[in-house]
């Protein structure tokens, strides 16, 4: 199969996923409501830490609350949690239908997930950035860095979706991916910088974080927004490497896994 048809298929899946999301409007309002509360809780709590000091881990109070707003805003665009249906399909045997399709499974799957992310940019990220700005929890980045930020979000969403896919692919061997899902959620909560900016970590934990993919999801784009100390292109390059590496891993696991499939019934 040539690259063009892979891209066309992925694009079609993205459009369908986007349309499907648009149906659940009430669900999005309530999700937005909940996100706002989490944004306020984290921002006020972290701001309270700056009562007696100017900087923590190299970040000042404004950068820290901006960090909270941006990471909360893009949480659904760059998801750490979510059932993507592959595990269920493996258990029910439904996966054979996907296997029979003459399309590349991984790229179509990722295409669909990108559609979901695109929806959340409009439905979740932009409104939350507005809420954060109104509450005084947002400092805008220099305009010139916005394109870099956008590219970084795309790469981050890619990595996040591949991680979710990898979790579910484990069900080829484990039967249930539920344990792996929780384990990964635990590590990604900390090492994606969602709970606390990675800048606040002690040195040894930052070193561990460098070798994990989670830092490349929420943390890197958010850090670019508040002003990354390092070269921006280097950050993007590292993200791209992780994205490619994990995607290849997913391809390998998928093709190894399809040999494990045991379909019940006729």
């Amino acid at each position: 199969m040539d690259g063009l048809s892979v891209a066309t298929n992925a694009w079609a899946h993205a459009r369908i996923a986007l349309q499907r999301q648009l149906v659940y409007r009430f669900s999005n309002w309530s999700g937005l409501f909940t996100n706002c509360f989490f944004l306020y809780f984290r921002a006020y709590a972290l701001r309270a830490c700056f009562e007696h000091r100017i900087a923590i881990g190299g970040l000042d109070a404004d950068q820290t609350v901006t960090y909270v707003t941006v990471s909360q805003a893009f949480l659904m665009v760059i998801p750490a949690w979510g059932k993507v249906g592959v595990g269920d399909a493996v258990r029910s045997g439904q996966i054979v239908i996907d296997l029979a399709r003459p399309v590349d499974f991984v790229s179509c799957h990722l295409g669909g997930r990108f559609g979901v992310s695109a929806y959340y940019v409009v439905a979740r990220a932009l409104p939350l950035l507005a809420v954060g700005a109104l509450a005084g929890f947002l400092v805008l980045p220099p305009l010139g860095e916005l394109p870099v930020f956008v590219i970084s979000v795309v790469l981050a969403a890619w990595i996040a979706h591949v991680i979710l896919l990898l979790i579910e692919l484990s069900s080829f061997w484990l039967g249930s991916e539920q344990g792996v899902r929780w384990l990964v959620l635990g590590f990604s909560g900390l090492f994606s910088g969602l709970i606390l900016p990675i800048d606040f970590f002690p040195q040894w934990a930052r070193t561990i974080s460098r070798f994990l993919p989670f830092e490349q999801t929420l943390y890197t784009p958010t850090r670019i927004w508040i002003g990354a100390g390092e070269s921006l292109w280097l950050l993007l390059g590292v993200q791209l490497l992780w994205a490619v590496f994990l995607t290849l891993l997913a391809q390998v696991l998928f093709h190894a896994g399809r040999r494990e499939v045991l379909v019940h019934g006729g």
Partner: protein
Amino acid sequence: MAGDLRVWTRVYGAMLAASVREQMSYRGSFVFELVGRLTVTGLELVALFFLFQHIESIAGWTKWEVVYLYGMASICLGMGEALTTGFDDMPELIRSGSFDYVLVRPLPALLFVLGRDVKLRILGRSLQGAFAVCISVMHLQLDWDVSHLALLATSVICGVTVYAGLFVASAAQCFWTVESTEMFNAFTYGGAQMTEYPVSLYPGWLRSIFLYVVPVGFVSYVPAVALLGKTDPLGLSPWGVWATPLVAGTFLGACLFFWRLGMRRYEGAGG
């Protein structure tokens, strides 16, 4: 009425036992998920320790005092969540009309849904919370007597009551919306997130919601102030301790009333 109550307790007990037996038959997946959930909450605690390497206190509360708050929030949320997992597929029950089967049982619908499925693995959060409370109490070297322990127990019961009430209300909401929504997560998981720190650090409007409307903050903060001997800038302290069970009970009552309203709305699936 008293007879009914005895029968209900027995049936609920039997359902609970069946649910536990069922989970133990898939021991591998049970242990795996328990460990996974322990990791999630364990690393939250790690993040708290990371934060306190930079600061001595937050809104006047020291590290171990915040660890106590965090632990209590985890215990109460975890137990509230574990008790109410039967509600998890409420949307499915309503959409498919299976809720009809619930209604024909000789048991209040609420009790039946409650006992249908109690997921012990969710207790991981509570276990980890209990660990956090233990180490914090040890480090704080509090001079506690029996009355303090009684207050601690009351505090846990009130907390679990409020969270369980929230989960019931969240399920009841499905009678109107059919789909499950994240709205109540703002108060359940959000409430636990908020009360990880003293509520006094939040702005007035936000604080008031969580003290007086959805009293997750009230049942966390007020007993903690008394138990840890903190000074309370909000002036809730002496009277609030006595009011805590009342607040939790009233809130649970309101949630149950909401459930009743929802039940009245339920029309069933055809036929």
